[in-house]
């Protein structure tokens, strides 16, 4: 059993401006209005710490990582 983490944005809570994209540019782009575009929802192992930091930095707690047991 391996565990993968997936990124998820609570679209209602998210206010844009994209702090998350600054901290996790490998996985997150911004659209022309500053709202996140997830390039990939699967968090590779090497980016775990970055993802955790981005989740913690979101001022409105809109960014989440979910545990998918596969």
């Amino acid at each position: 059993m391996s565990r993968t983490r997936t990124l998820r944005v609570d679209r209602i809570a998210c206010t844009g401006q994209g702090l998350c994209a600054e901290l996790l540019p490998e996985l997150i782009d911004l659209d022309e209005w500053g709202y996140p575009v997830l390039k990939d929802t699967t968090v590779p192992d090497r980016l775990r710490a970055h993802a955790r930091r981005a989740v913690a930095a979101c001022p409105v707690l809109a960014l989440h990582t979910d545990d998918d047991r596969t």
Partner: protein
Amino acid sequence: MNSSAAARFTPHRLSPGPGGPAAARLLAGWYATGRPAGLTDHLRRYGPPPTGDRGSLPLVDAVAAAGLTGRGGAGFPTARKLGAVAARRGRCTVVVNAMESEPPSRKDQFLIAVAPHLVLDGAVLAATAVGADTVHVCLPRDRAAQYRRLSAAVEERRRCRPDPVRLRLHALPHTYVSSEATSLVRWLDGGPARPRGGPPRAHERGVGRRPTLVHNAETLAHLALIARYGPAWFRQAGTPDEPGTLLVTVSGAVRAPAVLEVALGTPLATVLDQAGGATQPLRAVLLGGFAGTWLPARHLRTPLTRHDLAPLGAAPGAGVLVAVSEALCGLTETARILAYLAAHSARQCGPCRLGLPAVAEDFTALATGRADAALLSRLRRRAGLLPDRGACRHPDGAARLAASALQAFADDVDHHLAHGPCPAARQPPQLPVPPATAPETWR
């Protein structure tokens, strides 16, 4: 499928009425009598719903064996939803979604008008199967006559054949996204009829924090018949992978616009023929709804199934089929629909609140011949960024429509970019599209 188990069901005793299309099941009574079925008519035609203690298959298994899928648009397997709610601990709740948000759709309205007890039977059977004590029926507030008639039907049941669960009717604001399952849950809990997003999903935590089963009205009517006649009967219509019938609202350039019941797998052209045939040479059909797909007329031989339509990027959706003639500017019509969809965003999610109006404006610029050199690539990029970026599927639907229009009306796109609007763009629009104004209320 276990056929011996299925055979324990009451054999098929539904016969389509004289003159009615052979496929009719939900509408059989209507075709036979030409009038809405009261409780007496209903019981005479279909008999009482099985009570579950006659040694028949459990309902969830029967529905699974029948292969019924949701008829509200998403096409999700009905039995899986039933099973998911039944598996949760504690009391659950059933919600009948009769909000019919697609402006060209009339099928739920028609079904509830002519066969209200079939829908209510299905809701009560589903509630009993998952252990719910309450059924909430959600109707659009602007259909007051429908509300009154359904209230009378509920009252009639209370008097003559009391149901084991409580039936409650509600009139909700009729907006494009108020039909979303989580919008209904929020409204029933006293909030605005706006999508909530998730997780948790409604089946995990819905109305009053209870596990909640939300089904489209037509889906429940099919379920009421499967409970009576069994999965083998249900599978006599449709294709092996997509069995049964579905209600289709056919409108536009046809002689006899109507709500029809057709077997899945019926070619689109045959459905149009059943609506009296085209009044003029057709250019395309809008399939599924405003959140659907434009299909050029050369694809009209395609059978109406998810499987056959998928390679064309289309799906039966909410059973909407709008035929449009050759004298139509596909871009102008699409721009009008997109403007309506943009106005009906619940304005909760940035990508939907900002992206939809931007895509609609780009489309209008294209339709009216105001396109700059960068327009087409900008439009494609913006539409490409809509899917999967809202709390609900509203932006996905708008993106699908926009992309399909650019493909189906590629000639128009070239013409508009090179020479400005085509002559058809100056004609009055063909499609009835509600005004592109924001909903007055969400409560």
